[in-house]
């Protein structure tokens, strides 16, 4: 189940919106397994700076990505108020550290506007499109780009 299949259909889709440093992002609800509070992670040796480490998720080892650091913003300083969104892409499960979950949206495909043409790595890599909801701008994320790639996925 990928976030947004390339062949967009005209079905209404549900998205979960969340906040990072005054910006709003959203991902498809179908790729969200659960939402849980922050618990300190065991740091991983030799991991990229945005990898906060691993936590125990009911017996599975779950790696936690600091989404703000991943998107090139200021690294988060996690507190108990922070939230981990547990997402699944293909067979891998990864937790995303965000500040708070803001909304659950139901939209149709027409609501998704193409990403404005900007020459930043950010929009080329992570953004799938933008949504205008009640005067807010919410960026639809490409989850697969967020996850660190491994050899197994390259195959």
């Amino acid at each position, binding site marked *: 189940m990928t976030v947004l299949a390339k062949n967009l259909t005209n079905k209404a889709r549900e998205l979960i919106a969340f906040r990072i440093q005054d910006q709003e992002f959203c991902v498809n609800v179908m790729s969200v397994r659960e939402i849980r509070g922050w618990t*300190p*992670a*065991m*740091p*991983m*040796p*030799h*991991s*990229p*700076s*945005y990898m906060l*480490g*691993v*936590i*125990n998720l*009911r*017996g*599975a*080892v*779950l*790696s936690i990505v600091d989404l703000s650091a991943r998107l090139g913003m200021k690294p988060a300083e996690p507190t108990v108020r922070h939230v981990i969104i547990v997402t699944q892409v293909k*067979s*891998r*499960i*990864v937790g995303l550290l965000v500040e708070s979950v803001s909304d659950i949206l139901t939209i149709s495909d027409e609501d998704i506007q193409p990403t404005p043409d900007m020459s930043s790595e950010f929009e080329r890599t992570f953004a799938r499109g933008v949504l205008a909801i009640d005067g807010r701008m919410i960026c639809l994320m490409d989850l697969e780009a967020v996850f*660190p*790639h*491994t*050899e*197994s996925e390259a195959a």
Partner: protein
Amino acid sequence: MDMNEIKEIFFQECEEQLAELESGLLRLNDGDRDPETVNAVFRAVHSIKGGAGAFGLDDLVSFAHVFETTLDCVRSNKLEPTQDVLKVMLKSADVLADLTNVARDGGSVDQARSAQLIRELDALAKGEAPPQAAAVVAAPKPVAAATPAPVANDQGFMPVAFSFDDFGGEDEPLMEIPVYEITFKPKSELYSKGNEAALLLRDLSRLGEMSIHCNMDDLPPLDQMDPETAYFSWKVSIKTDKGEDAIRSVFEFAEWDCELDISSVDSGEDSGPAGDELPMQPVPFDLSALDDELEVPLGVVEEEEQIAAAETASNVVQLSAATARGADKGAAAAVAAAQNNAQQAASAAAQTIRVDLDRVDRLINLVGELVINQAMLSQSVIENDSNGVSSINMGLEELQQLTREIQDSVMAIRAQPVKPVFQRMARTVREIADITGKSVRLVTEGENTEVDKTVIDKLAEPLTHMIRNAVDHGLEMPEKRLAAGKSAEGTVKLTAKHRSGRIVIELSDDGAGINREKVRQKAIDNDLIAADANLSDEEIDNLIFHAGFSTADKVSDLSGRGVGMDVVKRSIQALGGRINISSRPGHGSVFTMSLPLTLAVLDGMVVTVAGQTLVVPLTAIVETLQPDAAAVHSFGATQRLISIRNSFCPLVDVGRILNFRATQANPVEGVALLVESEGGGQRALMVDAIQGQRQVVIKSLEANYTHVPGIAAATILGDGRVALILDVDAVVSASRGNPLHLESLAAAG
């Protein structure tokens, strides 16, 4: 179910059949003459052939067919299962296994070898059958005596791939087309396996002119009818010049699941009363009690005698039953026994199910989680409840016991006997004995010792290697053995037993033992030890675990592969096991392996490094020590050595290697773990503190993350936190200047 799944099931069944085949042949080799053993062997080959036929695996079918033919000669007492015969058959079983593997995984099989065996099998089948074999053919009685009481799952009746020219009408100058009477009574199994009587009869009709009579006498009233049961039987009279073999081949895949009787009738007369009565001959005891289970072994009587024997057929049954079970017991007892066996067999079969390993793994994971959760719950109750409400504590204690029991039961699901691996070793022994020209007997004990499936899968390779080693290096040539006052035949003994929560596998040989002088000399030649080193016998013996160490004088087919006992030691250690050797010159050697019962947990040393909790596998640790300042010596810019009993061992700062801290730790403030690593070198791993030893559940990191250099896996501690399990070899190798590979992560960052 797609075709591939069905095929996979077939191959799984093949494995079972092959194991059955080999163990049966080995029993025969040890002098077992129980006809049921022969039947089991025969059935195994037959089932493989049947399945292979269904999937169009021609090589497998043709080899199995030849094999089956020869086995049938043994079954019908035309061929005495002597040691020589069994040698050929055991080799054939090996080839059959190879063919099966090739059919499953591709690759090629040694054509010359299988062709050679086909010739040998053929020769055995056509071989000068002992003279009394003719008598057997001619007289029903001895045959009946030799064929014991009808056993539930055996027809006592098989196609014999002999030419029937001598019997059939084919050699008569004026060809009269022979008429055969066929009685065909399917059992319910026939239908449950997807066979269809109508199709069989249709195939039959293609052979010639045919008349069919369906017997519906057994059909109960509709309300009592069990739709899964077979009630009909057919009597067929067919005029064909294709011969009896052609008729038999129609029923080839159905013969285990029906009663089949074929007899030829002189075509000159119409089906006389004899011919009529014969197939449905009532036997003078109560057959109805048998639920279609009992076979009347009329079939062993050759067709020539059928008519004459018609009146005596019932006597044959009685006779054979009586001879098999002892003349003092009545046939009824035999029938009851046979029925019992059948029921036992049926119930045993009904009590196993095949379960996808993934499902079991999932269950194991969940239970592991339950255990952790229960521990966390207890922990928090204890912390938050100073009064100690007894009912809650009691409940928690019960919960703890329950979770433990659940965990044990789930682990037991994956536990399997080591038998299949041990059986595979029998073949290894045979092959190596052949190559080396030694005479070897493999004795196994404790085959039913159970261990987790994951361990079993990884056991075969080191065991095979050790067996090779034992036969090739351990045992002497027969003449040498005789000269030493031993039997010419060497013995290799493989045993398994449980000991204190682990499985201990012992491999011993009664060969020459380790030639310590030679090992020592070789170690000196290879600069492993100093020429004047003073080593104990044990230390010398353990030298053979060093890389590239082989004491065979000349490079044989087996040694000289550059693979030595060091590889065995590594693979055992990788399983979390240990291996020891003890040897007595002239009496042989014993290798003892001790392995964990499961790969799901490991014994670890829980340590702290730079504020993080890590687990170091206990098997890697030789000893722990508290370095004092005097023992630590700087060496160059960054290296430090620690002196341990006058030898210097490099210090490895785990915190630095894993990037947990930027500066080197002060060794004196920490603890050093002396570890054995790949290549046999010792290193001292520096950690801050030791928390204790614990059994931890292994969790994969790769599943949701990626491989982390220097980290083997993760685990979850009792407080619910994740701890990483150190990959000792990788850390040591990094300390040698091979930086941990970071390509995947560097690309991601």
